């Protein structure tokens, strides 16, 4: 690991900026997006639903603590974006995560699972290499995802914390990209769950940084927040380059824990 994992202080805690800007806040009463746009992207214009980025999300979430999202960026390898930011307007921490892509990335299809705390717009904003912003938005009916308990079996969750797994899938026909799914056992506590026996909130404990590389080449780097579901699960694409390649993942959490995994790139489907 040669590159330092960067960090953006507001990530996951955009509310801080919001509450210090009374005017923005007043506007945000009706539509939080107005303030969010300003706080995260400044005055930069964002093209909406222009086809460059698409977002799949369920209209009604079955489990608010585990809402699957899939983002597709059109145009193939040539138009690999600079970054992708996922936002949930009405979550306590609206920025779910920001992914930035490197030369190891394939055409961008990225799927993950998020917590949705209230009926809310969910957004995927892509920044192209040229610096333009493009957004797709879906309205999701879900509630209470941020305060829902992280995992169903508390003992198992504790015992397996930090375990990583990578699944690899066969290339889609006609695609030069490969697909893989990274799974991390981590409670990704939102800190919004109050322990009724003690009267205190369970402190937030979540993955802040994640970097995936193919050999030395960056596939993606993620800066995450509390709106990512427990047991973070990211399906992504990468561009295979040759023989004896290794995919590596390094994740860091709020407790300073560093989790690492590495897997040889397989020639076909591992399932």
């Amino acid at each position, binding site marked *: 690991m040669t590159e330092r994992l960067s960090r953006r202080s507001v990530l996951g*805690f955009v*509310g*801080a900026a*919001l*509450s210090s800007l009374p005017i923005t806040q007043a506007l945000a009463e009706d539509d939080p997006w107005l303030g969010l746009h300003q706080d995260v992207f400044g005055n930069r214009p964002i093209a909406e639903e222009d086809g460059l980025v698409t977002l*799949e999300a*369920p209209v009604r979430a*079955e*489990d608010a603590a*585990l809402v*699957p999202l*899939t983002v597709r960026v059109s145009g193939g390898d040539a138009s690999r974006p600079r970054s992708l930011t996922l936002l949930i307007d009405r979550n*306590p*921490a609206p920025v779910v995560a920001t992914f930035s892509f490197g030369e190891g990335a394939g055409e961008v299809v990225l*799927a993950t*699972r998020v917590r949705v705390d209230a009926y809310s717009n969910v957004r995927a904003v892509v920044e192209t290499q040229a610096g333009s912003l493009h957004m797709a938005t879906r309205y999701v009916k879900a509630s*209470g995802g941020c*305060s*829902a*308990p*992280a995992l*169903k*079996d*508390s*003992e*198992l969750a504790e015992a*397996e914390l930090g375990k990583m*797994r990578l*699944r690899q*899938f*066969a290339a889609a026909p006609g695609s030069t990209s490969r*697909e893989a799914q990274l*799974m991390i*056992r981590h409670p990704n506590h939102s*800190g*919004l*769950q*109050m*322990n*009724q*026996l*003690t*009267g*205190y*909130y*369970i*402190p*937030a404990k979540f993955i802040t940084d994640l970097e995936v590389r193919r050999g030395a080449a960056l596939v993606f780097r993620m800066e995450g927040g509390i709106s990512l579901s427990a*047991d973070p*699960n990211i*399906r992504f694409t990468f561009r295979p380059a040759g023989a004896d390649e290794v995919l590596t993942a390094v994740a860091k959490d709020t407790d300073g824990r560093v989790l690492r995994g590495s897997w040889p790139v397989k020639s076909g*489907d591992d*399932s």
Partner: protein
Amino acid sequence: MRIAAISFPATRRAMVDPGPQLRPAVGAKLRRPVARLGRPPHWTRRQALSGTLHWLALAASAGFAVRAGAQDGPPVVPLEVTEIASGVFVHQGAYALFAPSNRGDVANLSFVVGRDAVAVIDTGGSFAVGQALRAAIRAVTDKPIRHVINTHMHPDHLFGNAAFAEDRPDFIGHHKLAQALAARADRYLAVNAQLLGSEAFAGTRLIAPTRAVHDRAVIDLGGRELILEAQPTAHTDNDLTVHDTATGTLFLGDLLFMRHIPALDGSIRGWLALIDRLERVDAKRVVPGHGPPIAAWPEPMQPQKRYLETISAEVRRMIKEGRSIAEAATTVGLSEKDAWLLFDAFNARNVTAAFAELEWE
């Protein structure tokens, strides 16, 4: 092993239930939980505010509700119960989701009368339902209610606990029940207050277990013993079964759903493994958590077993084929649709939970 007292210090327990002696006077502000509300270290003002106000609102509504429920409420109508075996009474809950009209009366509730005492098994989805269950018990017997057993953490089974506080019983649960409730109480109270509406929810508060069953425990009601067993993770991670050996009646809580589609909130692998074990338990009859008040044994386990096996086989296949959790949620288990009530309310959620579990195999 006998029941061991749970190890929470009294002050911590008080955060969930102050108990009659600690409960604030009517109209008094609920101070303690609020005063101790810490602001998490890197919490923004907006986040802290939203959390705090939420809890304040909850505490206030619960406080006022106690007054309404305890003094000014409508007369309590006893729940309808059936004596399914000598001294064993069961109230059948509705096949429904929480709604103001059913007050959260959607799970089967039971009580067993011994020579000296009464044990209650699950208390219903609200203080009002708990009161109505208590009235049904009092219509049958004056014996003291010494034990209130909760088969697991779900609100429809234990939100009526507070109605029994005046009896000063042992509130008994699986050793993981206290922790499971602690993590969920805030959300359970908020969601159910909303679903039931202020009238039906009035007086509802959580009472954490005062006694934990770690493995197996025996309760003596005088001339009849109840055997309590803490089960491994299945429907939830805190399922407790009760066996009345005098009549051979097995209370399975939500380890058995009949007609009502099973709801998965624990482990599908654990549940299927436990079913294999439970089927070998020698009992004359069972009481499911949802379904008719009485059933023969072990045949009624078959439909649930088939449902869980179907879900698990189809989910495993989708995982193997590299399909997504979103796709699974809309396609798995559809062959079971006509076999169950409330299928649309629970199936996709069960599939989602099963997928998140089985992809780690």
